[in-house]
């Protein structure tokens, strides 16, 4: 879900642009250094962007009787770290805002913060934590991608609640109200995204030991 065009007050729209901009600039710098230092990673980078492209195009029915879509930003965050995905995520958001009237240009900053920054950072954090806890590879990838997906939607919910607090129950009330629509819908989709991320990482890295997969994709092992 992206916040629709014109749905955030101008002050919020500008504020989110300002918050997101440094992350995207840092991401662009990081992206350049990945391309320069690890030319072998170029293919994986293209695939990570493409994965976000595919997944955010799929509107999937959920148990609540409504549809939503995954984000696909966890894969790139796991392999390259979260910064790179801020750039790739913004490209996806721009495509959808301009060609599909899905999301918007005024809300691009806010949507980028949710999908291209918070989601990837959470995915990366969970991935690192899971590694430290010694969880199995597939479990770690699954958790990282699923929780990254959920984090994106929680962020969107809070952004909307901040812009439109409930007249009676305030920010928390609005967050609960918007969240009740998203949360249940999104849980099965987050699971689907987690599973698909493991499948695609496996397909991209081929017949390799689990412990070598990410290093191979990141262009670190030869």
């Amino acid at each position, binding site marked *: *879900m*992206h916040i*629709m*065009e*014109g*749905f955030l007050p101008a002050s919020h729209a500008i504020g989110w642009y300002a918050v997101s901009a440094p992350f995207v600039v840092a991401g662009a710098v990081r992206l350049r250094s990945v391309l320069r230092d690890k030319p072998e990673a170029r*293919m994986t980078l*293209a*695939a990570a962007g*493409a*994965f*976000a*492209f*595919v*997944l*955010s*195009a*799929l*509107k*999937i*029915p959920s*148990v*609540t*009787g*409504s*549809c*939503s879509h995954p984000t696909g930003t966890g894969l790139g965050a796991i392999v390259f770290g979260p910064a790179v995905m801020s750039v790739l995520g913004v490209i996806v958001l721009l495509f*959808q805002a*301009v*060609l*599909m*009237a899905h999301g*918007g*240009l*005024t809300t691009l900053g806010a949507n980028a913060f949710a999908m291209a920054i918070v989601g990837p950072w959470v995915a990366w954090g969970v991935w690192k934590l899971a590694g430290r806890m010694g969880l199995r590879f*597939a479990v770690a990838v699954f958790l990282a991608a699923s929780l990254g997906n959920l984090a994106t939607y929680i962020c969107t919910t809070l952004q*909307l609640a901040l812009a439109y607090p409930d007249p009676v129950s305030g920010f928390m009330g609005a967050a609960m*109200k*918007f969240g009740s*629509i*998203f949360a249940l*819908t999104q849980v099965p989709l987050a*699971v*689907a995204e987690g*599973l*698909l991320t*493991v*499948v695609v990482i*496996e*397909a*991209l*890295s*081929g*017949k*390799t030991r689990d412990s070598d*997969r990410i290093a*191979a*994709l990141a262009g670190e*092992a*030869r």
Partner: protein
Amino acid sequence: MSRRSVWMLLGVALIIIVPLVMGGEFGGADAEVAALIEAREGFAPWFTPIWEPPSGEVASLMFALQAALGALVIGYVVGRRHGRREGLRGKDGTTPPTV
């Protein structure tokens, strides 16, 4: 494809099929939230999309295009890596790491 991947893809299929069997209207969750906001007194979006797909058909064309482009790239990368490993394996008999 590993057995693990096959099971996980079956799981994804199940996640999509179960809601369809349970039934529902399956509108967008984002549209539901938008309706909540639009119902507020005095709300009007202050900016409208610069271009909108003229119909649901054209919108679905755009979504299909987006998915197809992404799938094309992923398929290309998977195929290229696979082919490269196969090619290298032929020469020295060992499986090299992914490149």
